[in-house]
Each structure stands twice: as structure tokens, then as C-alpha cells.
């Protein structure tokens, strides 16, 4: 069970089709031990299917996935014994209390952390004897994430771990993930929150239509894809992408509903061009802002979509 060259996950040429739709289309990637690996993509991009194949919850049509040196398709249970999984929605027995739920999960594994440790991880000490169905949405979510740690796993898979949490609980969850990583363990994370991805992930795979269209560290993704700054505004009587793209120093125009985003290497020149165009057409630019490009811009540029539920 040697893990060659520190890679704890190896995926090669994974394919999964549902009818005529290729949910996962020839995907390959590797994750190193101790890495926080992010997966980003619009809904239906194939993130969850990919992750579920790696976790052993689904079987691929072709290709292979190896976790901790074990072929997932061959010895699923051995893999499950050593990984932790938090699925997207917190689905647990409604009529069991927090502690009963933790004990139930502990008894499914050969080794496990103490019940009190998991309850603490979920910050549910005060609600440990409350039935799951009587917990708030955020509390349910926290318990669901904490349960992914119950078997002291070597790799943890978190699917939208902070969705539905308030900012404070979200930050607490980030701390949990960072502590886990500092212990030399590996995290595979899918998220909708760019800030979360940018802050936590060592590397990010951006997926669309079943393929990985970019894979790198957040910083390099931004640098490689968008060298420009972004000017964002709203405008009445939009004249069309071509008019804006024809302005001096405008390198790209992207629209996202009401928002118009113009990328440029020369901010003053682009802004004066935009203002001139606006006054010529007797219209206003509202909510104008200038900012550095973010992961969100990369995502928008690569997929043409904003990441959102």
C-alpha cells in the first residue's frame, strides 16, 4: 500500500455517462498528501460525480481512481475505512440525538475519535442530546461535516462544507480544515465560495461540461488567465459587446446579467473611453468599480458563468 511520490489520489481518464450526457469526460488529476485540493465548477459540471467516483460511491464507466494506493473500484470498503466524506446535504437519522448519531457512525469504523471530540468539532456541546431534526440548518451542517472526521481519516472529502453557515461558523469551519491540513492530511473540497477556495486551496481544478478546463494554484490561475484589472459597472441601453470592445485599451468584455465587466491593462485610458462613450450616448455608468482580478473573474472567463446556486 505504498503511496508513490506522495500522491494520495490518482485519477486517470475517468469517464461516466448518463444516457447521452457525459457527466465526467476523460478526467485525470493527482492530489499530493497534505494538499487542500479544490474543485470549482457550475452546477452540472461533473464535480460531484467525479468526487463520488473517487470516494467509491459511484463506479466509473472507464478509467481508474486510486486512493492511498488502493484501487477504489476493487476495494471500496478499505478506502472508505480511511477517508472521511461529507456529502452536500446533511442527511442523518432525524430521530437520533447528536451524541447517538456520532456513536452510530463511530461503530461503523475500526478506529474512531472519541464522541466528545466530534461533538466539540461540530461546536454542539450544548445540543449534544438534541434530536437531529430539532437542530437548526447550520447545526445540522456542522454535525454532518464533523462526522466526516469520525474515523480520523487520512483524506477528507468536503462537498460544500460551509453552505448555509453564518460567517462566524464558516470561519470556524475553515479553522477546522486548516488544523486538519497542518496535521499532514489531505482535503478535497468542492465549494461555491470563491473566497473560501482562494483562501484554503493549494490547487484548484475548474470543471465545466465534464472536463477539467484549468488546474493550478489560485494565484497562478489568476495570473495566467487574467493579467488585466477589472472595471465593473451597470449601464442602461447597453450598446453591445462590440462597441465596448472597440474602445481603446479594452481587452475583453464579459456580461453577467446586469453587470458589465471590462478587462484592461490601462485603467485611466479604459475609463476615459467608457465615460466618453457613455456621454456620447447620453447614458450613465452606475455602480462603477475598479478592482484586481479574482478567482471569480477567472471562473467567469473560462466558463462564461458566474458560480452560483
Amino acid at each position, binding site marked *: 500500500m505504498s503511496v508513490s511520490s506522495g500522491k494520495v489520489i490518482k485519477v486517470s481518464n475517468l469517464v461516466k455517462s448518463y444516457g447521452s450526457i457525459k457527466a465526467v469526460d476523460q478526467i485525470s488529476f493527482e492530489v499530493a498528501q497534505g494538499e487542500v485540493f479544490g474543485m470549482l465548477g457550475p452546477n452540472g459540471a461533473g464535480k460531484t460525480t467525479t468526487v463520488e467516483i473517487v*470516494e467509491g*460511491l459511484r463506479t466509473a464507466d472507464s478509467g481508474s481512481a486510486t486512493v492511498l494506493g488502493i484501487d477504489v473500484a476493487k476495494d471500496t*470498503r478499505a478506502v*472508505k*475505512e480511511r477517508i472521511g*466524506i461529507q*456529502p452536500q*446535504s446533511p*442527511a*442523518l*437519522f*432525524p*430521530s*437520533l440525538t447528536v451524541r*447517538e448519531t456520532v*456513536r*452510530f*457512525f463511530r*461503530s*461503523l*469504523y475500526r478506529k474512531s475519535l472519541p464522541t466528545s471530540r466530534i461533538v466539540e468539532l461540530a461546536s454542539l456541546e450544548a445540543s449534544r442530546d438534541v*434530536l437531529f431534526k430539532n437542530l437548526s440548518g447550520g447545526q445540522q451542517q456542522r454535525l*454532518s461535516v464533523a462526522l466526516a472526521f469520525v474515523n480520523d481519516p487520512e483524506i477528507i472529502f468536503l462537498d460544500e462544507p460551509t453552505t448555509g453557515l453564518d460567517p462566524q461558523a464558516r470561519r470556524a469551519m475553515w479553522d477546522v480544515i486548516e488544523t486538519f491540513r497542518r496535521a499532514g492530511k489531505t482535503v478535497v473540497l468542492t465549494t461555491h465560495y470563491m473566497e473560501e477556495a482562494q483562501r484554503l486551496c493549494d490547487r484548484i481544478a475548474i470543471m465545466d461540461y465534464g472536463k477539467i478546463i484549468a488546474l493550478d494554484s489560485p494565484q497562478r490561475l489568476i495570473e495566467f488567465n487574467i493579467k488585466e484589472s477589472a472595471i465593473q459597472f451597470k449601464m442602461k441601453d447597453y450598446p453591445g459587446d462590440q462597441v465596448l470592445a472597440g474602445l481603446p485599451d479594452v481587452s475583453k468584455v464579459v456580461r453577467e446579467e446586469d453587470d458589465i465587466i471590462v478587462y484592461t491593462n490601462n485603467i485611466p485610458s479604459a475609463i476615459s473611453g467608457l465615460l466618453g462613450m457613455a456621454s456620447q450616448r447620453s447614458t450613465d455608468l452606475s455602480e462603477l468599480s475598479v478592482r484586481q482580478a479574482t478567482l471569480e473573474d477567472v471562473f467567469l472567463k473560462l466558463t462564461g458563468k458566474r458560480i452560483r446556486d
Partner: protein
Amino acid sequence: MRAFGAVFISYYRQFVRDRGALFFTFIFPIMFILLFGWAFRNEGVQRFDIGLVDQGSPQSTTIITFTLDNVTLDSGDKLFRLESGPFDDMMRLLEDGSLDAIIVIPASMDNSLAQEQPTAIQIYYDPTRISNQQILVPILNQVVNGLNQYLQGTTPLITLDEETVQSRELRYIDYLVPGVLGMSLMFSGIYGGLPIIQQRQAHIIKRLGATPLRRSMLIFGDLAFRMILVLLTAALIILVGSLVFDVQMVGSWLGLCGMVILGSLVFTSLGYLLAAFVKTEEAAIPIINVVTMPMMFLSGTFFEITSMPSFIEPVIKILPLTYLNDALRQIMVDGTPVHSMTTDVAVLAAWAVVCLGITIRFFRWD
């Protein structure tokens, strides 16, 4: 084994915290027994089933039939329901409790009456039934007296010879208790498919799929818990029947436990079959109602189904509850050993095998 224990305990906890399930498992069948038991506790005093055996005196038979047929209660209902046939047939009906008494009209009676010679007609009944001794025999005596007077003269031409036959005492409650037991096995088994549908619908099964738990453990844990539950239900139903209505459990307890488990398996596999085809709780509940409600009545849970339109009869003959109720009654009331109830056991086993087979073919965990 640890995982099995965990699944078992979690099912137990969820069950005891589910008031609806508790009610339907324990209170509901007891309610039926108490309600129907009290409502029909006097059933049998109201009316008597009499078998007439004519050994060759058509005239006398006509007179006696006419007389008995015209005895009415205050309510205007007839007191006697008459049936006639050969002695052996009537005797069998008397012995299994379908008749309350048999009146035998001797071949010589027509002649004797014509010659105004006394004749005895014989009556067979079960003396251990209080209603027979206290009500039936005196009434029959009165009827005979009336007949004698009608046939003129003060010397009685007809006398009543009492012959007693030991038959089991089948009261309505004796019929009811095994039926309610069968019914509750049906409900708990078919409703047993519901948690699987709910857990699948709520993605709980998928969540458990992320752990090393074998999915078959979910089924084994569920089955083990269900078997203990149905045995408890059976014990409770029999206890209440015995304490409140003095219902006797005549047969072997081991045989009864076996039949309870077989019956529960049949209906649990029906529940699983439902879970194999129905994806949501909202869709499952109406289907459960459509299946269980008619089956409850058609299979003779509360009343013997004797006169049904002919197109219904094949349905009754195929319903598993018909056979389970019959088997439970045979064990509890007649003390019939399980190994002599080949048809019941075969039909029930066939149902379980077919349902499980289809379930295994079509069931999906996600």
C-alpha cells in the same frame, strides 16, 4: 457485528420516538380487539343456527321447520337460522361450531303422529355453552309444547331427547383475536418499507454509503428489529385477549411464533417490494392504503367472508392475509399443528419468495 448492533439500536430508538409507529403497532390492534370484542360480546345469544336432519318424515319436518322458522325475537328478527342435510354433515358443522344444535326427526314420526303415538325427536347440542343450556333448550321445549298443543290433545305426542356433543366454544372474540394479529402483522410489515423509502429520499442511505457499513446490514438490522417487534405485538394482543375476554391460545406457542415470523416476513417483503418501485413517501402512503385496507376486510380479519360476489372470490383466494389469518386461527383456536397446514404455509412462503425475488431484481439503493 458492531455495525449490526448499531443499526439495530438506531432502528429501535427511532421506533420508540415515533408516536405514529408506536400507536399503529401497539394501540391500534388493541383498540380493535376491545371495540369489536365489547360490541359483539353478546353475539350468539341473539340467534341460533339449527341443523335439521330429516330421516324420512317429510310432513313432520315441514311442520317443525315452519314452527321454528316463525319464532321471532322482540326485534322481529328470526331466532333460528335453519339448515338441513344428512346427519353426518350436520354433525360436522355442530362439532366445528357452525351450528348450535341439531334436531333429528326420526323416520317413524309421520306414522306415529298419524296414529297419535308419542314420538321422540332428538336434539344434539354442546352443553358447555351456557347459552345452549339456558336459552336454546328451554326455547326448543316451548316450541315442542306449542306443537303438541297444536297437534291437539293434552298428551304430548312429541318429546325432546337431549343429546350432548362436546364442541369447542367459538365465540366472536375467539375469531377476532387471531384476525387482529394477522392484520397487525400486515400493517407493520407493509409499513416497514416506508423507512427505507424515507431514508433513501432523504439521502441518508447515500450518506451511510460513504462509510464502510455494508448495505445488507441495514436490511438485517431492520429485519431483526421487526421480528422482535412482531413477537412483542403478538404477545400483547394475546395477553389482552386472554385477560379481558378470556381468549384461549390452544395450539403450540412455538408454532404460533413460527407463523407470526413467517407472516411478518411475507408482509415485510411486500413492504420492500414497494420500496423497490416507489421513490417517495408521498407516493407510497396512498399505495399502502389501497393495498392494506381492502385486504384487511377481504381476508376475514373481522368477519368471515362467506357471501362475496363471485368475481371477488379469486382475489380473496390469492391474498396472503387470507392464509395467514386462517393459519393463525387454526393454531390459536383449534390447536392445529403447523405441519398440517400445508396450503397456508405454501402460499405464504410463495408470496415471500416471489416478493423478495422481484425486490432483489429491481431494488435500488439510490
